[in-house]
């Protein structure tokens, strides 16, 4: 059974956001027994160990949302889950700010946890987002993601 259209919610946000109010709204929109959530925040060190001033995130609007939605629907179906919520920041982010929130609901905890982890990997590898680290006023585009 394919998830219905409103079972995948995607928000790309360009301002600082804790994500918690959005998560609360989404949780109230469904009543599934099990919800697995991941929240990623900006580190205070760059990949090379230097202090990080800011993280710049850009994306390809339109294609980005479409690819996330396709991944989410495929993964919900594969894992037997019901609803997915993706909140992703773009713009200039300071250390400690939320970058990404992924939430997946299901009737059982195992599928919810596995699908949430898989959707996070899909966001990292299959969605057109790009990160640039800023240290000492110099910006460096990342060539790969942090390891699992």
């Amino acid at each position, binding site marked *: 059974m394919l998830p219905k259209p409103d079972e995948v919610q995607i928000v790309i946000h360009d301002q600082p956001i804790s994500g918690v109010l959005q998560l609360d709204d989404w949780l109230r929109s469904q009543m599934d027994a099990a919800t697995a959530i991941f929240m*990623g925040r900006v580190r205070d060190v760059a990949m090379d160990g230097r202090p990080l001033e800011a993280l710049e*995130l*850009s*994306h*390809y609007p*339109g*294609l980005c949302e*479409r*690819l996330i939605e396709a991944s989410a629907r495929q993964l919900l179906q594969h894992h037997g889950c019901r609803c997915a919520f993706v909140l*992703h920041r773009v713009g200039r982010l300071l250390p400690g700010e939320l*970058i*990404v929130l992924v939430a997946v609901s299901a009737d059982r905890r195992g599928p919810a946890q596995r699908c949430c982890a898989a959707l*996070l*990997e899909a*966001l*990292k*590898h*299959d*969605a*057109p*987002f*790009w*990160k*640039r680290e800023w240290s000492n006023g110099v910006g460096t*585009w*990342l*060539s*790969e*993601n942090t390891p699992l």
Partner: protein
Amino acid sequence: MNQSQSDAPPSVKVLLFASLRDQAGWSERCIALNAPAVQTAREIWDQLELGDLPQVVLVAINQDIVSADHPLQAGDELAFLPPFTGG
């Protein structure tokens, strides 16, 4: 999206992202097609004079990921995408 019937010269909109944007110094450009010959995404890239198309760069035409050898039509949106680093 085929504009060959209109007065405008046949062209595609080319989008660059992230490091490619910095490398080229621009993010969006209109590139004329050499009609009536059909051109591929790779052939448009070669016109941009940014070196060989890196294997890791993905190509999207009208917001669909396609092969670099996919043919273009006038009015298409062609995007070159460095490796994704989101999430």
